[in-house]
């Protein structure tokens, strides 16, 4: 299939951008209409957390999707989706820092050290930070494509830490966190499989060129 024109991609980007803002818009709208239920902070925490993980998984789906569908231009949405994962992750963190801990640094450090689900969540966010900072074209140039790509594999670990954060936080009934876990496992398995296939092919091809 022929790639869409630049204008079409730009229009699609605007549409995807607005769509990515929908979860936040819903929260804000509900907040102003007193629709956030008995424990609004809990709702905000859960919603921003859920969308962080969801955007991480969507971002990780871009590569398998573009390869399986032979639509290479899909990669142009990857940075935006990844940045939205970071955006919702930062909102999630801010909810903790502000609405839960009221900037009490001592309490936060205590929580990070003592509560393993918070340790995991903080790790997940911290791993995304360098990726967000180096997401510009300038940084890709500065680091060089290969090193940049290596650095950005941190997203696998961030997503894994995010899922672990969710699993450790749940008291009973692991269905929801495990759903994220299975999707992530599938996305990582795809990468493992393509790496193995690529390696086998290159090994097979080396003697062929030598002989």
């Amino acid at each position, binding site marked *: 299939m022929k790639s869409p024109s630049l204008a079409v991609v730009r229009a699609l980007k605007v549409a995807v951008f607005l769509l990515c803002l929908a979860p936040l818009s819903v929260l804000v709208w509900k907040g102003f209409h007193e629709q*956030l239920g008995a424990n609004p902070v809990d709702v905000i925490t859960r919603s921003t957390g859920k969308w962080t993980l969801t955007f991480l998984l969507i971002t990780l789906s871009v590569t398998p999707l573009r390869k399986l569908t032979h639509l290479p231009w899909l990669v142009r949405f990857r940075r935006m989706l990844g940045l939205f994962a970071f955006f919702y992750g930062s909102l999630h963190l801010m909810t903790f820092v502000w609405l839960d801990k009221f900037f009490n640094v001592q309490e936060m450090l205590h929580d990070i050290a003592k509560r393993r689900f918070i340790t995991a969540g903080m790790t997940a966010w911290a791993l995304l930070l360098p990726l967000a900072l180096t997401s510009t074209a300038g940084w890709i140039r500065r680091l060089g494509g290969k090193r940049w790509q290596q650095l950005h594999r941190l997203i696998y670990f961030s997503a894994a830490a995010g899922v672990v954060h969710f699993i450790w936080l749940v*008291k009973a009934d692991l269905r929801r966190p495990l759903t994220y876990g299975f999707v992530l496992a599938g996305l990582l398995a795809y990468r493992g499989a393509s790496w193995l296939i690529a390696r086998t092919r290159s090994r097979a091809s080396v003697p062929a060129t030598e002989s």
Partner: protein
Amino acid sequence: MLIKKPDDIPSSEITPKSQYLSRRKFMFGAVATGAALAGGYYLRTSSEIDQPVAADGVKLSGIVKSQFSTTEKPTSFKDITNYNNYYEFSTDKYEPNGLARNFRTRPWTVKIDGHVKRAKTLDIDSIMKLAPLEERIYRHRCVEGWSMVIPWVGFPLSALINQAEPLGKAKFVAFETIKAPDQMPNQKRRDVLPWPYVEGLRMDEAMHPLAILVVGLYDEVLPNVDGAPLRLAVPWKYGFKSIKAIVRISFTDYMPPTTWNQMAPDEYGFYSNVNPTKDHPRWSQASERKIGASIFAAKQRTLMFNGYADQVAGLYSGMDLQKYY
């Protein structure tokens, strides 16, 4: 069409029709709902739901005030009934209200057994007459770090215990929630909690005047979502100790198993007294978010024994509460 004639609610406990119809609980849309008060009978017809509907929303009468009530402003009825843990229905705190709506609370009996003079089965309506109903406005502290102020209606658990005539070797009281997987969706699953939910108290805790059996909320019959028709309220302990929809009360000479303790012994002890100095692996217990407060309001400090230390600390004198959490 089913015309059910439950004779289990005496007329004295039924509000005049006009008031009763105005209550928010009875929303049946197109469903033909008829309620008639005649000769002490409570009639209900329904073309869509062929079963008697719970009697929640019905006003309770003869409620007396109690010296044990807090003067704090109670949490709204809406928040109390739309945000709670009731894992039999859902692990989501917003869902039990809808899922418990048609839960059947009549007929309902409670089995009293174990080390008692004579095991017996009591009907819920006779239980409701064991002692005068009191309004008990209690602080309610969930182990998850949120709290409410709840105007329960009930009577001291000790009244039922005295009626049960426990033997000398009865050292603990064990409670059991109904097992009704056809009505409680999560009881069909094995990966939530072991069913039925069980709880327990030491005999002296159970006999304490603050420990009550609850049959109402805000002067009305207890809503299904809050554990109708009979639940416990032990305000100095974390909320999960206050077991809902009780069908069995047994007297034992051993510390009975309790559901959350079985699930995660390092997180939930048998006693589970509210204790801000005993950290929980998941949540700080030093402070709590008061339901109904502004999202920008600071959390409030959690008090030892949830503020009931003056009354209950004596039960635990000499015990290491870091060890016996």
